[in-house]
């Protein structure tokens, strides 16, 4: 593989452009058995330790390794959960006796809103992300996540946002319209509560999407060589499905938040029925997110069960394909259920029936998973290790929740119990059974992996039984309470209703649950320095994570293994020895850099050994500035927010410039076992390309949600567009569309031309692209403004303007990316051969061009047809 090229050399073909793996793959038995030189091994270990060492002292906060970030994430999410739990206890104190005045109605309303919001947004999904960040690399024999700084950035955003949102409770300004914030109540609420909810949570949702991107890329691109898709651990399958679900479920909420905030700050009437808006649009957008959300929360915990059950049965899982099928099936079908949260809104029976049927259909793949676990337990010989107790309890509780779910899917029955305590019971049974219990069991199971010590078996059992009994004492009566007519979200009730002793029982139960959780929390954080280190594989599991080092080493995995089975620790007795001696891939760090192996998506064939990022401060700065950009508008400090946003962009640019797509000194490196791999890849071999692709899929979904809003208004409102309304100027819209197409064309051509080493032409084209984009965005803005469309007068101009703002913001991002490439080309970072930045920018531009064209159609063509 040669490196030398002169500018007069004929243009490299796509094939030559990309460096390819060279050498032996798959590794031969000879290579695997080759003996090892202890001196060389010691040197390699020293290199690895140096490259991967955790920063000390106050520099510890700059760490980005998955072990650190994952631990912080998990502990923060757990802390938020405890806060939300305290809110729940206060609610139960208020409801323990009738006509209570322990909490005023206003305070009560803030508390139940924050309990739900904190549990769902600050605990449920972040905990999944935290655990996955901690575990996924280990499951895949990798050393770290593919984008460590992105994980760190996501974490700091989450922490800042979470403290801000939850902190509002202490200042009596918390949002108080329910965790679902229905307009018009929430849009018209005075004070900053709803803005805190909207802006604080949008900020956190972005962190969630970042995590989803990482997890998907990790599963698809960073598996160990040989781990084909059919021998991937089930946890990885679940992470993949859930990551994709997050990608398609969160954006509709982000779109809804976008419209909601525009209404609150600029009075654009999307949800105001007096001006052509409709409160139902919010309900649709919220629940299109809200329903998949509960499956996003439930599937990863079942994934933990999928890892614990085989270990407890000491045999491989039965029905691997069935479980994969269920996970994917649930992932898809769960997007078709959302209107079952809106059964009482008066929609036509045909539509409601449709969603009623879909809600029943999803039971089938859900049930298949459960039966696959039961079958595994039945085919093996079960050892009732402590984590299995939690899993068994989880199944008992979850099946109850699932059965009430089947009842609720029958729409007429839901018409009776919707918005009563029956639903509160159902949701807590599914959430505790589907999330909390498997999570706690998972912590017991993986604790020796995280900390090399065991938790207490005795305390674990006490905690389990206390929580299990307390949970049922609290929530089982609620089914009856709801059937006796007690609505949800009521600050108090009268003593004549017959709900007294049921509520008292539930309140007592709530405190028992709290005791159980506290026992668990104590067991988690109590000092264990005097305890001996746990054995390396205390549960005798078969999957890769149990090859971890005891005592702990920061490098994650001593070498990246070649895998040929689902349970390598059970099936290959030489495996651990080879791994420890570094006789697999990348056992060293000759340039002192952190690296990961990148493999193909389905067959895990090695494609590259790529550097990944190490400790940094720019991620914390970026998170702080991003926080400012979202939090300052709550206090109406819009200019400061804009400045903060610019600061965030600057930090991100700095981060990307200094740590990604660096031109390498040598094009490839020897990774061991007779293989040389490139250290720089572009296109769909590259994690960076996938990150851009996945992010844009999420972004496109949010955009599609706004377009859905246009069609929704057209269907639901007779006055959309209103008689005689001004439409966007057709000529300017056409020019705008042209501008986007030209900019897109310029970008693609720039990429091609750059590859042929005609750098000046490439730079000129990039410049042209920038100008066309600015022109296109400007034309679109003028097209809306010139005819006098007033967005605060009616939902029609408002949503056209919303589309315009969206495209405008994305055009800005497109311009920044093009300028970044331009700068890179001048500075020698972007070369004809090493052009990942331009490739990824082109990918962004495919999406932006499409958005621009669709928006032009929506603004210019659709309203004229619909009038």
């Amino acid at each position, binding site marked *: 593989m040669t490196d030398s090229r002169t500018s007069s050399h004929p243009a490299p073909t796509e094939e030559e452009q990309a460096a390819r793996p060279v050498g032996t793959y798959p590794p031969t038995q000879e290579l695997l058995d080759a003996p090892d030189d202890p001196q060389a091994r010691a040197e390699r270990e020293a290199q690895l330790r140096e490259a991967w060492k955790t920063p000390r002292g106050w520099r510890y906060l700059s760490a980005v390794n998955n072990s650190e970030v994952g631990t912080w994430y998990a502990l923060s999410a757990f802390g938020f959960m405890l806060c939300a739990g305290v809110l729940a206890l206060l609610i139960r104190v208020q409801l323990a006796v009738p006509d209570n005045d322990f909490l005023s109605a206003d305070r009560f309303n803030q508390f139940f809103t924050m309990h739900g919001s904190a549990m769902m947004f600050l605990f449920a999904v972040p905990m999944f992300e935290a655990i996955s960040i901690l575990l996924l690399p280990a499951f895949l024999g990798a050393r770290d996540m593919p984008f460590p700084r992105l994980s760190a950035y996501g974490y700091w955003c989450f922490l800042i946002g979470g403290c801000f949102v939850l902190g509002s409770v202490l200042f009596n300004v918390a949002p108080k319209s329910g965790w679902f914030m229905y307009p018009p109540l929430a849009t018209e609420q005075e004070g900053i509560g709803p803005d805190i909810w909207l802006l604080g949570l949008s900020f956190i949702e972005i962190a969630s999407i970042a995590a989803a991107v990482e997890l998907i890329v990790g599963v698809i691109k960073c598996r160990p060589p040989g781990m084909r898709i059919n021998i991937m651990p089930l946890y990885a399958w679940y992470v993949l499905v859930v990551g994709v679900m997050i990608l398609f479920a969160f954006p509709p909420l982000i779109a809804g938040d976008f419209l909601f905030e525009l209404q609150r700050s600029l009075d654009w009437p999307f949800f105001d029925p007096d001006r052509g808006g409709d409160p139902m649009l919010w309900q649709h957008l919220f629940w299109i997110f809200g329903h998949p959300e509960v499956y996003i929360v439930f599937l990863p915990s079942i994934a933990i069960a999928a890892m614990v059950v085989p270990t407890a049965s000491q045999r491989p899982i039965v029905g691997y394909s*069935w479980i994969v099928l269920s996970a994917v*099936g649930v992932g898809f079908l769960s997007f*078709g259920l959302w209107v079952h949260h809106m059964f009482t809104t008066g929609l036509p*029976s045909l539509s409601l*029936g449709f969603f009623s*049927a*879909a809600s029943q*259909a999803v039971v089938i*793949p859900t049930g298949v998973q459960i039966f696959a676990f039961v079958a595994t337990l039945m085919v093996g010989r079960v050892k009732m290790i402590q984590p299995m107790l939690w899993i068994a309890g989880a199944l008992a509780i979850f099946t109850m929740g699932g059965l009430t779910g089947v009842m609720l899917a029958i729409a007429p029955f839901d018409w009776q119990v919707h918005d009563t305590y029956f639903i509160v019971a159902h949701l807590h049974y599914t959430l505790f059974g589907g999330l909390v219990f498997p999570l706690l069991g998972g912590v017991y199971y993986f604790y020796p992996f995280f900390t090399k010590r065991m938790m207490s078996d005795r305390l674990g059992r006490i905690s389990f039984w206390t929580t299990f009994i307390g949970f049922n004492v609290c929530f089982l009566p609620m089914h009856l309470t709801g059937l006796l007519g007690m609505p949800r979200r009521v600050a108090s009730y009268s003593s004549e209703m017959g709900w007294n002793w049921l509520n008292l029982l539930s309140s007592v139960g709530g405190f028992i649950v709290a005791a159980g959780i506290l026992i668990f929390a104590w067991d988690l954080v109590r000092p264990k320095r005097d305890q001996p280190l746990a054995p390396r594989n205390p549960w005798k599991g078969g999957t890769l994570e149990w090859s971890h080092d005891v005592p702990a080493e920061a490098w994650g995995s001593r070498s990246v293994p070649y895998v040929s089975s*689902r349970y390598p620790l059970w099936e290959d007795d030489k495996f651990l020895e080879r791994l420890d001696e570094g006789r697999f891939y990348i056992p060293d760090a000759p340039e002192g850099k952190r690296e990961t192996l990148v493999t193909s998506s389905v067959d895990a064939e090695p494609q590259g050994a790529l550097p990944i990022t190490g400790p940094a401060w720019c991620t914390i700065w970026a998170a702080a500035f991003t926080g400012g950009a979202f939090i300052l508008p709550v206090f109406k400090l819009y200019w400061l927010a804009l400045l903060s946003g610019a600061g965030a962009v600057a930090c991100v640019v700095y981060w990307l410039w200094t740590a990604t797509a660096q031109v390498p000194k040598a094009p490839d490196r020897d990774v061991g076992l007779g293989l040389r791999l490139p250290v720089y890849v572009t296109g769909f071999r590259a994690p960076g390309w996938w990150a851009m692709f996945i992010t844009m899929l999420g972004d496109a979904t949010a955009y599609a949600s706004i377009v859905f809003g246009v069609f929704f208004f057209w269907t639901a409102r007779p006055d959309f567009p209103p008689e005689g309304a001004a439409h966007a100027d057709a000529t300017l819209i056409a020019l705008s569309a042209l501008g986007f197409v030209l900019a897109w064309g310029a970008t693609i051509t720039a990429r091609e031309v750059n590859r042929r080493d005609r750098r000046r032409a490439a730079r000129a084209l990039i410049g042209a692209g920038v100008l066309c984009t600015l022109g296109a965005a400007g034309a679109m803005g003028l097209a809306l403004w010139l005819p006098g469309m007033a967005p605060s007068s009616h939902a029609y101009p408002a949503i056209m303007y919303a589309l315009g703002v969206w495209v405008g913001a994305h055009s800005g991002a497109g311009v920044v990316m093009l300028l970044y490439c331009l700068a890179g080309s001048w500075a020698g970072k972007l070369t004809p051969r090493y052009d990942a930045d331009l490739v990824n920018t082109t990918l962004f531009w495919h999406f932006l061009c499409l958005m621009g064209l669709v928006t032009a159609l929506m603004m210019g063509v659709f309203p004229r047809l619909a009038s």
Partner: protein
Amino acid sequence: MKDQKPPYRHRSLWHMVLAPTVWAFHFVFCYAVMSVACIKLGAPDIARLGVAALTVIALGIIGFLGWRAWVQWDFRPGDNYKHDRPTEAQRREFLGHGGFLLSIVSAVGVIFDALPIFIIESCI
């Protein structure tokens, strides 16, 4: 050894999820047809016919995909359910088996989704 390269679907995760993707499109179009027909036009028969047509098309496509996945799964007497070896054949059969099972789930989903048109006759 095959003469030509094996088809892309033998190593494609995208193909494995084609059937549920068809379900997703069926769902979106049915939802759109029902909304427009009932809310905008007040015409339940258009809604029911539209859904019926979409269902027939969707089931047809899913049936085809399921059959193709069945062939890829290569069902023979013996052990067909374990695909735990990292060979090309097992990977291909795994993707086929997964695709086949997903076709069944998708067909069930499509049928469930269409059920209301046989039972509910008005937009009320």
